[in-house]
């Protein structure tokens, strides 16, 4: 595999991560949205680690926002907006605001996303009962 192909793949991965994130955010059904969201989050997380000296700390915000949008799918719009706001504030605080957490932000943020997805999956049954 040529290095050019790999390099193009690296930036293509970023584009794919953004596209998957958009797909997840725009998918109405909750489970497919979570699947797309988890995939996008995983992809963006790996690329953020590779680019931790340059684009990584900026790229990870996409994973955070996608997670917030996807896990609050089906909830009132106010709650969704609030969740996205909290997500952005958390991203900013861990990545840029608090010196002590900067070094671990590219690990902590994906972990928080992971917890959010698990919580969303665990509460899915309750959602069904409410809807029914």
């Amino acid at each position, binding site marked *: 595999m040529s290095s050019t192909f790999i390099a193009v793949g*690296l930036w293509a991965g970023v584009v794919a991560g953004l596209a998957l994130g958009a797909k997840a955010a725009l998918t109405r059904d909750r489970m497919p949205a979570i699947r797309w969201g988890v995939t996008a*989050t995983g992809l963006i997380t790996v690329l953020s680690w590779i680019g931790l000296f340059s684009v990584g700390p900026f790229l990870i915000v996409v994973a955070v926002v996608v997670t917030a949008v996807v896990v609050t799918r089906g909830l009132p719009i106010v709650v969704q907006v609030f969740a996205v706001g909290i997500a952005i504030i958390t991203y900013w605080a861990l990545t840029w605001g608090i010196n002590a957490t900067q070094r671990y932000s590219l690990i902590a943020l994906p972990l928080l996303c992971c917890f959010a997805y698990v919580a969303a*999956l665990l509460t899915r049954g309750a959602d069904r009962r409410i809807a029914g």
Partner: protein
Amino acid sequence: MLTRRIVRIFVAALVSAVTTAGAAMPSVYAATASAHMQMFDVSHDPIQFLDSHVMEVAGAHVNGGCKFTVFLSRGPSEQRVGSQEIGRDPLACVELVRIGHVNAVSLPTGVNDRKAGDPCDDEFFGWYDPFGIKLTDVDTGGCFSYNGTYVGGCYQSYNSVYAESPTGWYVRYRNNGGSYYNSNYTQCYAWSAEQFENDTFCPAGSTYTNYYDNELIMQGNGWVGDGTSSWSSGQCTNLMHSWSNL
């Protein structure tokens, strides 16, 4: 049922991550030339070789890293030359370097080829990440005259540095240096020394790029040379590589 779904989703996520890593990480890790040789994705570097060869350069363990010195030289009317680190074995302290003439148009800086009689020249040395984004660099200019044997009127015309500050790179140490002649005035050196540091996003600890010394060599026969010793040290150094041009 729910557990199975959770497992399936996380297996899918894991596969996605591993697939992504498979596509991207080989640029940094996989194309090993030896047991511990890390190959770098260098295709984003804005340096185009017109001709080149790959050579192995032995370094010296120093200050938590491997210090390498790659010597470049060029005649008064010769096209610019460059070096590009394409692999590094941190245990054996050996690097693979591509060396050759480069297309000056592709370069972001130092594009003015010196012609015979021109008094000034420059050399550039920089460290880049896998995305091809510049992290740190040192660019040094020098002017001189020569009469076929001796150099004269030698001085350092500029010494500029760059650090990718948005992600936490900063100049930890800088000595602007200056210029000096060798004992028989056949060579003159425009030199400086720099160390850059990043304490911000590598979870394992601080990362450094070092330029000790950064040297543009001006010679009595009109040739110029690059004798910069540079190395990365600390943590996460497998996410960066260097290239230079003269």
